[in-house]
């Protein structure tokens, strides 16, 4: 039997709205497989998203979903988790939503180490709003608002998350589809904030402005730049120039926020 993705998707929602070749569907499939692997129950799982192409995923997933304001997914998700710590809370969003407009919420969710899984689909641009450059658009590349090339340095989401205090940080790509569910599943099992960045492609607003002739060219780029952490350990800095590390990049144990807060409540009650 082929994999049953459909039972996780709201009836009548396919085909989805994403452009031909957009990797968001590949990531959504990985997420579904991870949910199955971790035994997540629909009634006990909340998926929270902001605004953007990636955040549209909430419309398709047949779970408790919360489609919130631009960039505010982590804040709403924190609220859900604080009110119902027993729920599995998943945050889904793009690079612009998570690291620019919602950058503050993102770093503070990391700092608190609240037990949620934050999946960032990094397509390196604001796709839905018309291809404006995001903090993840590579330096020199073109966007609708940087037609002569982007002068900004690029955010490394993984380093940002580690620096802010996230206790599980992993990175995959839409090309390496079989790895996506394993990374997300590890993140769900982790007790603390797990950030999983999936490098993705946006053929419509990024690819055609940056000399990618096809979706396949964009996928090949993801294939070329990704280096697993184990392989990277044996490579020189020159060999790693222009590459990105994939796999589990950081993992540590630190007190989890809702557990800490439960202790505050019990102290306040004089227990």
């Amino acid at each position, binding site marked *: *039997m*082929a*994999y049953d*993705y*459909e039972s996780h*998707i709201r009836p009548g929602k*396919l*085909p*989805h709205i*994403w*452009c*031909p*070749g*957009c*990797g*968001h*569907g*590949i990531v959504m*499939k990985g997420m579904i497989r991870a949910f199955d692997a971790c035994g997540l129950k629909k009634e006990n799982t909340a998926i929270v998203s902001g605004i953007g192409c990636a955040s549209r995923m909430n419309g398709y997933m047949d779970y408790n979903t919360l489609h919130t304001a631009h960039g505010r997914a982590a804040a709403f998700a924190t609220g859900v988790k604080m009110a119902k710590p027993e729920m599995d809370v998943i945050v889904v969003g793009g690079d612009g939503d998570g690291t620019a407009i919602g950058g503050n919420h993102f770093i503070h969710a990391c700092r608190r180490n609240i037990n949620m899984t934050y999946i960032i689909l990094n397509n390196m641009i604001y796709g839905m709003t018309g291809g404006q450059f995001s903090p993840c658009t590579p330096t020199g590349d073109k966007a609708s608002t940087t037609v002569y090339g982007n002068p900004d340095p690029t955010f490394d989401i993984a380093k940002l998350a580690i620096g802010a205090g996230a206790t599980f940080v992993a990175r995959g790509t*839409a*090309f390496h*589809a*079989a790895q996506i569910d394993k990374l997300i599943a590890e993140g769900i099992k982790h007790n603390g904030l797990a950030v999983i960045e999936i490098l993705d492609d946006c*053929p419509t607003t990024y690819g055609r402005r940056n000399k990618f002739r*096809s*979706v*396949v060219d964009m*996928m090949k780029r993801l294939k070329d730049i990704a280096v697993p952490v184990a392989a990277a350990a044996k490579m020189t800095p020159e060999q790693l120039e222009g590459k990105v590390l994939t796999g589990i990049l950081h993992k540590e144990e630190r007190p989890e926020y809702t557990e800490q807060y439960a202790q505050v409540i019990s102290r306040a009650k004089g227990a």
Partner: protein
Amino acid sequence: MSGAKAEIEIIERNCKGCSICVEFCPTKVLAMDAFVVKVENADACIACMQCELRCPDFAIKVHKL
């Protein structure tokens, strides 16, 4: 006698013709038919599942035989 290890089902309604599956199939089972993928060389399928995993549009189902 067919050598296929799996039967590939195409859900044409979902296919947007991105051709990721065609490009990365290791045994060239799939081909584009205008804007929709089709199974061209069914016997060569080795059931590696890469087309199903990489299809962003839920348009390919691989049924292992």
